[in-house]
Protein backbone atom coordinates (compact mmCIF):
# COMPACT_ATOMS: atom_id res chain seq x y z
CA UNK A 1 0.00 0.00 0.00
CA UNK A 2 1.26 3.42 -1.01
CA UNK A 3 1.48 5.23 2.31
CA UNK A 4 3.36 8.48 2.82
CA UNK A 5 6.61 8.27 4.78
CA UNK A 6 6.15 9.54 8.31
CA UNK A 7 8.51 12.34 9.31
CA UNK A 8 8.17 13.20 12.97
CA UNK A 9 6.90 16.73 13.55
CA UNK A 10 9.39 18.90 15.34
CA UNK A 11 7.80 21.75 17.19
CA UNK A 12 9.52 25.14 16.75
CA UNK A 13 11.47 26.12 19.85
CA UNK A 14 11.46 29.83 19.15
CA UNK A 15 8.78 32.19 17.81
CA UNK A 16 11.09 33.27 14.97
CA UNK A 17 11.21 29.67 13.74
CA UNK A 18 7.48 29.75 12.85
CA UNK A 19 6.65 30.21 9.15
CA UNK A 20 5.76 33.62 7.76
CA UNK A 21 1.97 33.63 7.37
CA UNK A 22 -0.55 31.19 8.77
CA UNK A 23 0.92 28.34 6.78
CA UNK A 24 2.58 25.04 7.42
CA UNK A 25 4.07 22.32 5.26
CA UNK A 26 1.19 20.11 4.11
CA UNK A 27 0.91 16.94 6.17
CA UNK A 28 -1.09 13.78 6.66
CA UNK A 29 -3.05 12.39 9.56
CA UNK A 30 -0.95 9.57 10.96
CA UNK A 31 -3.19 8.64 13.88
CA UNK A 32 -5.38 5.72 12.82
CA UNK A 33 -9.10 6.33 13.05
CA UNK A 34 -10.40 2.87 12.23
CA UNK A 35 -11.99 2.71 15.71
CA UNK A 36 -14.63 5.23 14.64
CA UNK A 37 -16.28 2.83 12.20
CA UNK A 38 -19.67 1.27 12.71
CA UNK A 39 -19.76 0.10 9.07
CA UNK A 40 -16.84 -0.61 6.74
CA UNK A 41 -16.82 -0.33 2.94
CA UNK A 42 -16.07 -3.46 0.86
CA UNK A 43 -15.11 -3.11 -2.82
CA UNK A 44 -16.48 -5.78 -5.15
CA UNK A 45 -13.50 -6.04 -7.51
CA UNK A 46 -15.60 -7.79 -10.19
CA UNK A 47 -17.97 -4.82 -10.45
CA UNK A 48 -15.33 -2.08 -10.03
CA UNK A 49 -14.52 -0.25 -13.29
CA UNK A 50 -11.71 1.80 -11.72
CA UNK A 51 -13.34 5.12 -12.55
CA UNK A 52 -11.62 6.51 -9.41
CA UNK A 53 -14.72 8.37 -8.27
CA UNK A 54 -14.32 6.85 -4.78
CA UNK A 55 -10.64 7.81 -4.76
CA UNK A 56 -11.59 11.43 -5.48
CA UNK A 57 -14.42 11.74 -2.96
CA UNK A 58 -12.85 9.90 0.01
CA UNK A 59 -12.45 12.67 2.62
CA UNK A 60 -9.54 10.85 4.28
CA UNK A 61 -7.56 9.77 1.23
CA UNK A 62 -7.95 6.20 2.44
CA UNK A 63 -8.34 4.64 -1.02
CA UNK A 64 -5.11 3.48 -2.66
CA UNK A 65 -4.88 3.36 -6.47
CA UNK A 66 -1.21 2.41 -6.77
CA UNK A 67 -1.85 -1.31 -7.29
CA UNK A 68 -3.69 -3.42 -9.85
CA UNK A 69 -7.01 -2.88 -8.11
CA UNK A 70 -8.32 -0.20 -5.74
CA UNK A 71 -7.72 -0.95 -2.08
CA UNK A 72 -9.10 0.62 1.08
CA UNK A 73 -6.71 1.44 3.91
CA UNK A 74 -8.80 0.27 6.85
CA UNK A 75 -6.44 1.91 9.35
CA UNK A 76 -7.56 5.31 8.11
CA UNK A 77 -11.08 4.68 6.75
CA UNK A 78 -13.50 6.11 9.32
CA UNK A 79 -16.51 4.42 7.75
CA UNK A 80 -18.35 7.53 6.51
CA UNK A 81 -19.78 5.67 3.51
CA UNK A 82 -19.29 8.50 1.00
CA UNK A 83 -17.52 6.08 -1.40
CA UNK A 84 -20.40 3.59 -1.35
CA UNK A 85 -22.93 6.37 -1.81
CA UNK A 86 -21.09 7.87 -4.75
CA UNK A 87 -20.09 4.66 -6.60
CA UNK A 88 -22.00 4.71 -9.92
CA UNK A 89 -21.76 0.96 -10.53
CA UNK A 90 -22.70 -0.17 -7.02
CA UNK A 91 -19.33 -1.81 -6.43
CA UNK A 92 -19.01 -0.69 -2.81
CA UNK A 93 -21.12 -2.10 0.05
CA UNK A 94 -21.14 -0.99 3.69
CA UNK A 95 -20.89 -3.97 6.05
CA UNK A 96 -21.39 -3.87 9.82
CA UNK A 97 -18.07 -3.82 11.66
CA UNK A 98 -17.36 -7.20 13.21
CA UNK A 99 -19.46 -9.05 10.60
CA UNK A 100 -17.93 -10.92 7.67
CA UNK A 101 -17.99 -9.74 4.05
CA UNK A 102 -21.51 -10.97 3.58
CA UNK A 103 -22.66 -9.06 6.63
CA UNK A 104 -23.09 -12.15 8.85
Amino acid at each position, binding site marked *: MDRPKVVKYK*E*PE*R*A*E*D*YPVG*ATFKAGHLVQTNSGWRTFRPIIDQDKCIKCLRCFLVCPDGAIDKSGESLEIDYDFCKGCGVCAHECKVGAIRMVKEGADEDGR
Partner: protein
Amino acid sequence: MRMAGRKIFISGDEAVAEAVRLVSPHVISAYPITPQTVAVERISDFVEDGSLQAEYIHVESEHSAMSAALGAAAVGARTFTATSSQGLLYMAEVLPYVSGARFPIVMMNANRALAVPWALLSDHRDSLSQLDSGWIQVYCEDAQETLDMIIQAYRVAEDERVMTPMMVNLDGFVLTHTYELVELPDQAALKSFLPDYSTDNKMDLDVPKSVCLAAMNHYMEYMMKQELDMRNVESIIEETDREYGDMFGRSYGGMIEQYMCDGADAVLVTLGSVTGTARVVVDSMRSEGYKVGLVKLRFMRPFPKAEIIEIGSKVKAIGVVDKDISVGYEGIVFTNVNSALSDLDRVPQRLNFIAGLGGRNVSKAHIRDMYMQLLEVAEGKEKEKIQFVNARCEYNG
Protein backbone atom coordinates in the same frame (compact mmCIF):
# COMPACT_ATOMS: atom_id res chain seq x y z
CA MET B 1 -37.78 45.03 47.50
CA ARG B 2 -35.76 41.97 46.52
CA MET B 3 -37.63 39.72 44.09
CA ALA B 4 -36.42 36.10 43.94
CA GLY B 5 -36.60 34.52 40.50
CA ARG B 6 -36.64 31.07 38.98
CA LYS B 7 -33.26 29.31 38.76
CA ILE B 8 -32.34 27.25 35.71
CA PHE B 9 -29.22 25.41 34.53
CA ILE B 10 -28.28 26.98 31.20
CA SER B 11 -25.32 28.04 29.08
CA GLY B 12 -24.13 31.61 28.53
CA ASP B 13 -25.68 31.61 25.06
CA GLU B 14 -29.00 30.49 26.52
CA ALA B 15 -28.73 33.15 29.23
CA VAL B 16 -28.50 35.77 26.48
CA ALA B 17 -31.61 34.33 24.81
CA GLU B 18 -33.55 34.28 28.11
CA ALA B 19 -32.56 37.92 28.75
CA VAL B 20 -33.76 38.91 25.29
CA ARG B 21 -37.08 37.15 25.88
CA LEU B 22 -37.45 39.08 29.15
CA VAL B 23 -36.73 42.53 27.64
CA SER B 24 -38.87 41.70 24.61
CA PRO B 25 -37.39 43.77 21.76
CA HIS B 26 -39.60 44.62 18.78
CA VAL B 27 -37.00 43.47 16.26
CA ILE B 28 -34.15 40.98 16.29
CA SER B 29 -31.90 40.71 13.27
CA ALA B 30 -28.96 38.37 13.48
CA TYR B 31 -26.72 36.05 11.53
CA PRO B 32 -25.37 32.91 13.24
CA ILE B 33 -21.65 32.50 13.94
CA THR B 34 -19.83 30.15 16.32
CA PRO B 35 -19.82 30.51 19.33
CA GLN B 36 -22.83 32.85 19.32
CA THR B 37 -25.04 30.45 17.31
CA VAL B 38 -27.00 28.86 20.16
CA ALA B 39 -28.10 32.28 21.42
CA VAL B 40 -29.73 33.31 18.15
CA GLU B 41 -31.16 29.81 17.60
CA ARG B 42 -32.92 29.98 20.97
CA ILE B 43 -34.23 33.48 20.29
CA SER B 44 -35.52 32.25 16.96
CA ASP B 45 -37.23 29.32 18.78
CA PHE B 46 -38.88 31.76 21.22
CA VAL B 47 -40.25 33.86 18.35
CA GLU B 48 -41.49 30.71 16.65
CA ASP B 49 -43.25 29.34 19.76
CA GLY B 50 -44.77 32.76 20.52
CA SER B 51 -43.12 33.22 23.91
CA LEU B 52 -41.33 36.25 22.44
CA GLN B 53 -43.54 38.60 20.45
CA ALA B 54 -41.00 40.06 18.06
CA GLU B 55 -40.06 40.34 14.44
CA TYR B 56 -37.04 38.11 13.73
CA ILE B 57 -35.30 39.21 10.55
CA HIS B 58 -33.20 36.47 8.99
CA VAL B 59 -30.38 38.17 7.11
CA GLU B 60 -27.58 36.93 4.88
CA SER B 61 -24.67 38.57 6.67
CA GLU B 62 -23.61 40.51 9.74
CA HIS B 63 -23.41 43.73 7.74
CA SER B 64 -27.08 43.25 6.92
CA ALA B 65 -27.89 42.23 10.49
CA MET B 66 -26.63 45.56 11.81
CA SER B 67 -28.11 47.48 8.87
CA ALA B 68 -31.54 45.96 9.51
CA ALA B 69 -31.22 46.74 13.22
CA LEU B 70 -30.30 50.30 12.30
CA GLY B 71 -33.38 50.58 10.10
CA ALA B 72 -35.65 49.21 12.81
CA ALA B 73 -34.12 51.49 15.45
CA ALA B 74 -34.62 54.45 13.08
CA VAL B 75 -38.39 54.07 13.40
CA GLY B 76 -38.20 53.79 17.18
CA ALA B 77 -38.09 50.02 17.66
CA ARG B 78 -36.27 48.30 20.53
CA THR B 79 -33.78 46.07 18.70
CA PHE B 80 -31.30 43.31 19.42
CA THR B 81 -28.52 41.68 17.46
CA ALA B 82 -25.65 39.33 18.23
CA THR B 83 -22.35 38.38 16.67
CA SER B 84 -18.76 37.28 17.21
CA SER B 85 -15.26 37.78 15.83
CA GLN B 86 -15.21 38.09 12.01
CA GLY B 87 -18.92 38.84 12.13
CA LEU B 88 -18.29 41.89 14.30
CA LEU B 89 -15.61 43.07 11.89
CA TYR B 90 -18.02 42.61 9.00
CA MET B 91 -20.46 44.88 10.90
CA ALA B 92 -17.76 47.45 11.54
CA GLU B 93 -18.89 49.80 8.81
CA VAL B 94 -22.33 50.15 10.35
CA LEU B 95 -21.25 50.55 14.00
CA PRO B 96 -20.49 54.31 13.82
CA TYR B 97 -23.78 54.83 11.92
CA VAL B 98 -25.61 53.43 14.92
CA SER B 99 -23.65 55.32 17.57
CA GLY B 100 -23.64 58.55 15.55
CA ALA B 101 -27.38 58.28 14.94
CA ARG B 102 -27.71 57.66 18.69
CA PHE B 103 -29.82 54.52 18.33
CA PRO B 104 -29.75 52.39 21.52
CA ILE B 105 -29.27 48.99 19.87
CA VAL B 106 -28.06 46.26 22.23
CA MET B 107 -25.71 43.64 20.84
CA MET B 108 -24.23 40.48 22.30
CA ASN B 109 -20.68 39.74 21.19
CA ALA B 110 -19.23 36.30 21.87
CA ASN B 111 -15.53 37.10 22.13
CA ARG B 112 -13.55 35.00 19.67
CA ALA B 113 -10.04 35.23 18.22
CA LEU B 114 -9.61 36.83 14.80
CA ALA B 115 -8.41 34.86 11.79
CA VAL B 116 -5.87 33.92 10.54
CA PRO B 117 -4.61 31.50 11.85
CA TRP B 118 -8.07 30.23 12.67
CA ALA B 119 -8.86 29.62 16.31
CA LEU B 120 -12.52 29.49 17.20
CA LEU B 121 -11.78 29.95 20.90
CA SER B 122 -11.94 33.12 22.91
CA ASP B 123 -9.81 36.20 23.07
CA HIS B 124 -10.65 39.92 23.02
CA ARG B 125 -9.14 41.15 19.76
CA ASP B 126 -12.55 41.32 18.08
CA SER B 127 -14.36 43.75 20.39
CA LEU B 128 -11.26 45.73 21.43
CA SER B 129 -10.66 46.53 17.76
CA GLN B 130 -13.98 48.40 17.87
CA LEU B 131 -13.29 50.56 20.94
CA ASP B 132 -13.43 53.69 18.81
CA SER B 133 -16.80 52.90 17.22
CA GLY B 134 -18.75 55.01 19.73
CA TRP B 135 -20.43 52.03 21.43
CA ILE B 136 -20.56 51.36 25.15
CA GLN B 137 -18.66 48.13 25.90
CA VAL B 138 -19.13 45.87 28.92
CA TYR B 139 -17.38 42.53 29.62
CA CYS B 140 -19.05 39.78 31.68
CA GLU B 141 -17.56 37.22 34.04
CA ASP B 142 -20.27 34.52 34.07
CA ALA B 143 -23.64 33.60 32.56
CA GLN B 144 -25.60 35.32 35.33
CA GLU B 145 -23.80 38.61 34.83
CA THR B 146 -24.38 38.26 31.08
CA LEU B 147 -28.13 37.88 31.55
CA ASP B 148 -28.22 40.79 33.99
CA MET B 149 -26.14 43.00 31.70
CA ILE B 150 -28.27 42.39 28.59
CA ILE B 151 -31.21 43.64 30.65
CA GLN B 152 -29.28 46.57 32.15
CA ALA B 153 -27.86 47.43 28.72
CA TYR B 154 -31.35 48.39 27.49
CA ARG B 155 -31.96 50.54 30.54
CA VAL B 156 -28.63 52.37 30.12
CA ALA B 157 -28.65 52.63 26.31
CA GLU B 158 -32.27 53.86 26.10
CA ASP B 159 -31.85 56.45 28.87
CA GLU B 160 -32.51 59.79 27.18
CA ARG B 161 -29.28 61.18 28.68
CA VAL B 162 -27.38 58.34 26.97
CA MET B 163 -29.06 57.19 23.72
CA THR B 164 -25.98 55.20 22.75
CA PRO B 165 -25.72 51.57 21.60
CA MET B 166 -24.17 48.97 23.89
CA MET B 167 -22.12 45.84 23.22
CA VAL B 168 -22.35 43.10 25.88
CA ASN B 169 -19.26 40.89 25.64
CA LEU B 170 -18.90 37.36 26.95
CA ASP B 171 -16.01 34.97 26.34
CA GLY B 172 -16.71 32.45 23.59
CA PHE B 173 -17.04 28.80 24.77
CA VAL B 174 -15.74 29.54 28.31
CA LEU B 175 -19.04 31.37 28.92
CA THR B 176 -21.18 30.77 25.83
CA HIS B 177 -20.92 26.97 26.06
CA THR B 178 -20.64 26.44 29.82
CA TYR B 179 -23.78 25.48 31.74
CA GLU B 180 -24.35 26.98 35.16
CA LEU B 181 -27.17 27.97 37.46
CA VAL B 182 -28.77 31.26 36.39
CA GLU B 183 -31.56 33.13 38.16
CA LEU B 184 -34.18 34.74 35.93
CA PRO B 185 -35.63 38.02 37.21
CA ASP B 186 -39.35 38.15 37.79
CA GLN B 187 -40.95 39.44 34.60
CA ALA B 188 -43.49 41.68 36.34
CA ALA B 189 -40.79 43.33 38.45
CA LEU B 190 -38.68 43.74 35.35
CA LYS B 191 -41.45 45.82 33.76
CA SER B 192 -40.96 48.51 36.37
CA PHE B 193 -37.16 48.36 36.06
CA LEU B 194 -37.24 48.58 32.27
CA PRO B 195 -40.23 50.52 30.98
CA ASP B 196 -41.33 50.31 27.34
CA TYR B 197 -39.04 52.16 24.98
CA SER B 198 -40.17 55.39 23.43
CA THR B 199 -38.09 58.11 21.82
CA ASP B 200 -38.28 61.25 19.73
CA ASN B 201 -35.10 60.23 17.93
CA LYS B 202 -36.85 58.45 15.07
CA MET B 203 -38.45 58.84 11.69
CA ASP B 204 -42.00 59.94 12.36
CA LEU B 205 -44.59 60.95 9.77
CA ASP B 206 -46.21 63.34 12.25
CA VAL B 207 -42.93 65.01 13.19
CA PRO B 208 -40.81 64.83 10.03
CA LYS B 209 -37.05 65.16 10.41
CA SER B 210 -33.88 64.21 8.61
CA VAL B 211 -32.22 61.18 10.13
CA CYS B 212 -28.59 60.08 9.62
CA LEU B 213 -27.97 63.40 7.95
CA ALA B 214 -24.92 64.85 6.27
CA ALA B 215 -23.49 67.68 8.40
CA MET B 216 -20.35 68.90 6.74
CA ASN B 217 -20.19 72.13 8.71
CA HIS B 218 -21.36 70.67 12.01
CA TYR B 219 -19.70 67.23 12.04
CA MET B 220 -17.25 68.25 14.73
CA GLU B 221 -19.97 69.60 16.99
CA TYR B 222 -22.07 66.44 16.65
CA MET B 223 -18.99 64.47 17.72
CA MET B 224 -18.43 66.82 20.66
CA LYS B 225 -22.03 66.26 21.74
CA GLN B 226 -21.53 62.49 21.48
CA GLU B 227 -18.38 62.65 23.62
CA LEU B 228 -20.12 64.90 26.15
CA ASP B 229 -23.02 62.48 26.54
CA MET B 230 -20.70 59.46 26.75
CA ARG B 231 -19.09 61.15 29.77
CA ASN B 232 -22.44 61.05 31.57
CA VAL B 233 -22.79 57.34 31.01
CA GLU B 234 -20.63 56.34 33.97
CA SER B 235 -23.01 57.74 36.59
CA ILE B 236 -26.01 56.20 34.80
CA ILE B 237 -24.31 52.80 34.70
CA GLU B 238 -23.70 53.05 38.45
CA GLU B 239 -27.24 54.19 39.20
CA THR B 240 -28.65 51.36 37.06
CA ASP B 241 -26.42 48.79 38.76
CA ARG B 242 -27.56 49.93 42.22
CA GLU B 243 -31.24 49.93 41.34
CA TYR B 244 -30.98 46.49 39.72
CA GLY B 245 -29.23 45.26 42.86
CA ASP B 246 -32.02 46.63 45.07
CA MET B 247 -34.68 44.93 42.96
CA PHE B 248 -33.06 41.64 42.01
CA GLY B 249 -30.29 41.15 44.58
CA ARG B 250 -27.31 41.34 42.24
CA SER B 251 -25.07 44.32 41.65
CA TYR B 252 -21.62 44.32 40.11
CA GLY B 253 -19.92 47.50 41.28
CA GLY B 254 -20.62 49.73 38.28
CA MET B 255 -17.60 50.53 36.10
CA ILE B 256 -15.17 48.28 37.96
CA GLU B 257 -15.15 45.82 40.82
CA GLN B 258 -12.33 45.91 43.34
CA TYR B 259 -11.68 42.52 44.89
CA MET B 260 -9.44 42.41 47.99
CA CYS B 261 -7.75 45.65 46.96
CA ASP B 262 -7.62 47.12 50.48
CA GLY B 263 -3.99 47.34 51.54
CA ALA B 264 -2.80 45.59 48.38
CA ASP B 265 0.74 46.19 47.13
CA ALA B 266 0.05 44.56 43.75
CA VAL B 267 -3.14 44.28 41.73
CA LEU B 268 -4.04 42.61 38.46
CA VAL B 269 -6.49 44.21 36.03
CA THR B 270 -8.63 41.67 34.18
CA LEU B 271 -11.46 41.64 31.65
CA GLY B 272 -14.07 38.89 31.31
CA SER B 273 -14.05 35.31 32.56
CA VAL B 274 -10.36 35.13 33.55
CA THR B 275 -11.41 37.35 36.47
CA GLY B 276 -13.05 34.36 38.13
CA THR B 277 -9.89 32.27 37.99
CA ALA B 278 -7.89 35.20 39.38
CA ARG B 279 -10.30 35.44 42.36
CA VAL B 280 -9.32 31.92 43.43
CA VAL B 281 -5.62 32.85 43.23
CA VAL B 282 -6.13 36.07 45.22
CA ASP B 283 -7.99 34.14 47.94
CA SER B 284 -5.21 31.60 48.33
CA MET B 285 -2.39 34.15 48.17
CA ARG B 286 -4.13 36.41 50.69
CA SER B 287 -4.43 33.46 53.07
CA GLU B 288 -0.66 33.03 52.72
CA GLY B 289 -0.15 36.70 53.65
CA TYR B 290 0.61 38.17 50.22
CA LYS B 291 -0.86 41.66 49.76
CA VAL B 292 -2.54 41.17 46.39
CA GLY B 293 -5.83 42.36 44.93
CA LEU B 294 -7.86 42.20 41.74
CA VAL B 295 -9.49 44.87 39.60
CA LYS B 296 -12.25 43.60 37.37
CA LEU B 297 -12.54 46.09 34.56
CA ARG B 298 -16.19 45.86 33.55
CA PHE B 299 -16.45 48.67 31.03
CA MET B 300 -13.90 49.59 28.37
CA ARG B 301 -16.05 52.42 26.93
CA PRO B 302 -16.59 54.69 28.63
CA PHE B 303 -13.24 53.99 30.28
CA PRO B 304 -13.16 54.10 34.11
CA LYS B 305 -10.30 56.58 34.23
CA ALA B 306 -10.98 58.03 37.69
CA GLU B 307 -11.23 54.56 39.26
CA ILE B 308 -7.95 53.43 37.71
CA ILE B 309 -6.19 56.60 38.92
CA GLU B 310 -7.54 56.04 42.42
CA ILE B 311 -6.25 52.45 42.50
CA GLY B 312 -2.94 53.54 40.97
CA SER B 313 -2.44 56.04 43.78
CA LYS B 314 -2.69 53.28 46.40
CA VAL B 315 -0.65 50.35 45.03
CA LYS B 316 3.00 49.74 44.19
CA ALA B 317 2.48 47.59 41.10
CA ILE B 318 -0.28 47.04 38.55
CA GLY B 319 -0.39 44.14 36.10
CA VAL B 320 -2.75 44.13 33.15
CA VAL B 321 -3.92 40.83 31.65
CA ASP B 322 -4.61 41.39 27.96
CA LYS B 323 -6.33 38.64 25.95
CA ASP B 324 -5.34 40.63 22.89
CA ILE B 325 -2.37 42.46 21.41
CA SER B 326 -2.17 45.54 19.26
CA VAL B 327 0.53 44.14 17.01
CA GLY B 328 3.46 46.55 16.95
CA TYR B 329 2.82 47.97 20.41
CA GLU B 330 1.33 46.23 23.46
CA GLY B 331 -1.94 45.01 24.94
CA ILE B 332 -4.88 47.32 24.24
CA VAL B 333 -6.16 47.33 27.81
CA PHE B 334 -2.61 48.08 29.00
CA THR B 335 -2.45 51.16 26.74
CA ASN B 336 -5.74 52.41 28.18
CA VAL B 337 -4.71 51.77 31.80
CA ASN B 338 -1.33 53.45 31.24
CA SER B 339 -2.94 56.49 29.75
CA ALA B 340 -5.12 56.91 32.85
CA LEU B 341 -2.17 56.36 35.21
CA SER B 342 -0.11 59.03 33.49
CA ASP B 343 -2.17 61.63 35.39
CA LEU B 344 -0.51 60.49 38.62
CA ASP B 345 2.56 62.24 40.02
CA ARG B 346 3.97 58.86 41.03
CA VAL B 347 3.04 56.08 38.64
CA PRO B 348 3.18 52.51 40.05
CA GLN B 349 5.28 49.82 38.38
CA ARG B 350 3.42 48.18 35.51
CA LEU B 351 3.61 44.84 33.72
CA ASN B 352 1.59 43.67 30.74
CA PHE B 353 0.70 39.99 30.51
CA ILE B 354 -0.43 38.94 27.03
CA ALA B 355 -2.41 35.78 27.78
CA GLY B 356 -5.11 33.52 26.42
CA LEU B 357 -4.69 34.42 22.73
CA GLY B 358 -6.78 32.05 20.63
CA GLY B 359 -8.19 30.55 23.82
CA ARG B 360 -4.84 29.46 25.32
CA ASN B 361 -5.40 28.28 28.90
CA VAL B 362 -4.70 30.72 31.72
CA SER B 363 -4.27 28.56 34.81
CA LYS B 364 -4.16 29.48 38.48
CA ALA B 365 -0.40 28.80 38.40
CA HIS B 366 0.05 31.32 35.58
CA ILE B 367 -1.87 33.97 37.48
CA ARG B 368 0.06 33.26 40.68
CA ASP B 369 3.27 33.76 38.71
CA MET B 370 1.98 37.14 37.48
CA TYR B 371 1.35 38.22 41.08
CA MET B 372 4.77 37.02 42.24
CA GLN B 373 6.42 39.06 39.49
CA LEU B 374 4.36 42.11 40.40
CA LEU B 375 5.38 41.80 44.05
CA GLU B 376 9.01 41.66 42.92
CA VAL B 377 8.80 44.75 40.71
CA ALA B 378 7.04 46.49 43.61
CA GLU B 379 10.27 45.89 45.56
CA GLY B 380 12.37 47.42 42.80
CA LYS B 381 13.31 44.34 40.75
CA GLU B 382 13.41 44.53 36.94
CA LYS B 383 11.10 42.36 34.82
CA GLU B 384 10.24 42.15 31.15
CA LYS B 385 7.51 44.75 30.76
CA ILE B 386 5.46 42.94 28.12
CA GLN B 387 5.31 39.16 28.45
CA PHE B 388 3.56 36.32 26.64
CA VAL B 389 2.04 33.92 29.18
CA ASN B 390 1.93 30.13 28.61
CA ALA B 391 3.45 30.27 25.12
CA ARG B 392 4.69 27.01 23.61
CA CYS B 393 8.03 28.49 22.69
CA GLU B 394 10.62 31.16 23.45
CA TYR B 395 10.20 34.77 22.39
CA ASN B 396 12.95 37.37 22.25
CA GLY B 397 11.10 40.48 23.41
